[in-house]
């Protein structure tokens, strides 16, 4: 497979349209593996992948772990509470130690933006960003785009609205970069207090009116709203948030296109940013996103491992 020579995947901002398309194409091939009775190929046999999660995660971590295991890699999971960070070791030193154990890929999630990049510059193994602060969550962006493409047949020319806490969302940023590169029109919508400064310079339309975000949209990506933001004086209550920005069946019926696609990166607050009848309704592809996440992560692991020196072989070899 040609066209990929990145050791790391840090964000979608860095990628070209061709690189994104290559990941999506590879993911299509990998998706089939998870439907087999024996869900395993030897592609990354003998490779060691470390999952280093400094923030709680169920979905992303299990998804990466399963992706690695289905490619026959050995995995090691480290969580903050059990790491040396609590003993005062710096993150960099911890990573240098992991590197000394001769691992091939490090998947990292951290609450501080820029951490994946910082670490990629100081260790030899591939680094995959599984979410850094409010910066990027590239594999989530990729799986969202993969799902959109699978359902709509294309990305170019689609109107995608991202609803919610844009300011604190790495999912929003990765979606914006990826979708814009593939030619979609992106609108962000949320309370003014959760729209970050100058975001329109990223090439998106901004609105604080949910109706405007619903009208003409082919896809809605609804972000999780965190209760903590209320304490930070960013909005008055979850109740009022739900009234103004919650996506309900009634609002969809009134303003949205009939073939609208509903995405949510999870975990959902049912009844706040999304009502159960929407989450579980016919427009929703929320669980398919999760299924696709494994395929996309298999593709990413395969590509970075190859750039990091895995011999080329058929990805579907059993």
């Amino acid at each position, binding site marked *: 497979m040609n066209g990929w020579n990145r050791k790391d995947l840090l964000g979608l901002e860095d990628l070209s349209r061709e690189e994104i398309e290559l990941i999506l194409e590879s993911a299509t091939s990998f998706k089939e593996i998870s439907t087999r009775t024996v869900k395993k190929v030897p592609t990354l046999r003998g490779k060691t992948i470390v999952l280093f999660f400094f923030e709680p995660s169920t979905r992303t971590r299990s998804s990466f772990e399963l992706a690695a295991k289905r490619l026959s890699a050995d995995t090691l999971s480290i969580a903050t509470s059990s790491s040396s960070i609590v003993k005062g070791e710096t993150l960099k030193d911890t990573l240098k130690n992991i590197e000394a154990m001769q691992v091939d890929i490090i998947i990292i999630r*951290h609450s501080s933006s820029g951490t994946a*990049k910082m670490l990629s510059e100081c260790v030899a193994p591939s680094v995959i960003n599984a979410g850094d*602060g*409010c910066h*990027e969550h590239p594999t989530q962006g990729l799986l969202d785009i993969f799902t959109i493409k699978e359902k709509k047949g294309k990305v170019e020319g689609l109107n995608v609205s991202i609803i919610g806490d844009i300011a604190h969302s790495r999912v929003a940023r990765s979606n914006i970069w990826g979708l814009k590169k593939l030619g979609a029109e992106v609108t962000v919508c949320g309370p003014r207090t959760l729209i*970050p*400064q100058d975001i329109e310079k990223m090439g998106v339309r901004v609105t604080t009116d949910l109706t405007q975000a619903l009208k003409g949209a082919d896809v809605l990506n609804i972000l999780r709203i965190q209760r903590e933001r209320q304490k930070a004086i960013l909005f008055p209550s979850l109740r009022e948030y739900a009234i103004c920005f919650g996506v309900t069946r009634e609002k969809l019926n009134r303003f949205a296109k009939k073939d609208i696609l509903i995405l949510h990166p999870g975990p959902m607050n049912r009844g706040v940013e999304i009502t159960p009848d929407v989450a579980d309704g016919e427009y929703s592809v929320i669980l398919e996103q999760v299924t696709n996440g494994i395929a996309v992560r298999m593709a990413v692991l395969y590509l970075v491992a190859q750039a990091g020196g895995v011999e080329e072989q058929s990805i579907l070899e059993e």
Partner: protein
Amino acid sequence: MGLLIKNGRLIDAKNNIDQKCDILIETDKIAEIGDNLSANNTEIFDANGLTVVPGLIDMHVHLREPGFEYKETIYSGTQAAARGGFTSLCCMPNTNPVADNPGVIEFILSQNKKAAFVNLFPIGAVSKGLKGEELSEIADLKSSAVVALSDDGNPIENPELMRRAMEYAAMFDLPIISHCEDRQLSAGGVMHEGYISTRLGLKGIPRTSEIVVVARDIEIARFTNSRLHIAHISCKESVELIRKAKSIGLKVSCECCPHHFTLTQEALINYDTNTKVNPPLRTQEDIAALKDGLKDGTIDCIATDHAPHAEEDKDVEFDSAPFGIIGLETALGLVVSELVDKGIISWKQLVEKMSLNPSNILGLSRGSLEKGAVADITIIDPKQEWTVRKEELVSKSKNSPFIGRRLRGKAVLTVVSGRIVYKA
């Protein structure tokens, strides 16, 4: 034994002199200024092609001693100052213990006496322990020779404390140096709030967090008829507020830092923690306003806010890294390259902002080259091009965003009280 500086271009803003002449130094004073001076048994320095100015004064540095000697010591910091062309420094009180009492001030002065590079004029804490609760013993601090008061780094949140500090300090003719920042507005912020912070997903420090406190402190200075010096301004609106305050005769002065008129938020794009400063690097528009302020005299002084941090402090996640960069060894080169060479300010204005004005604001009796004055002199090669190199920096910490940068203008000789403390 003295020192005779021959044929230099002498610039003295106080006496409005800009001409080629000789300076004779005897013991620690300037003995003579004139043409074709000669003297016996005297070291001669040929300053042909060089610029001779009153010793540079940096009124805002952090020397980290006592308490954080692994970042900088009074020895290493004052040595860096001498190399950068500075003959006097004013050090901020955020040491451990805090410089809020004569004991710490005396310790600092005695360490500097041993280092013996440059003059050190300590700034005392406004509040005990920099806690922003009770006033330090200001009369006591004054008697131990502090030249100003500041809670720099821990901005004074309580306006009542600021009011009382200004009133009380006025009895001793001590200016209050205010780090203007509303910590509620800037809470959690690590860089300028704008497009780049949005892109990087970093929490922003909104410009208004500086502006509201500049406005507040100007009003308190007006109300108390006291002296206020505003530290390291970074925003266009701060320049405007100070310009207006000066125009109605308030006793307000201010400084800005070389990094604030040189770099913008764009410098943070790679999450380099050596671009993490407080106040943060802002926008081109702000740089333009700072330059206007420097040009028209709204901004009185250029100070470095030299803030050394060890590599292990800075080499961490961006959010966890401390604010601050070093500046003593790059300030002059940046001022010459970015301001003088580009025609923003004249050499005379450089002398005002880096020597005469800080001296006047703090009462240091320096800042000019005249017969009988203390022989604090900086000789600059205005045309020398050089590259900032990490391994050449003598500051103990190397946290500079300017490493690798090409600059023009460099100190070649630094003289403090008639004694050569640095020679290139």
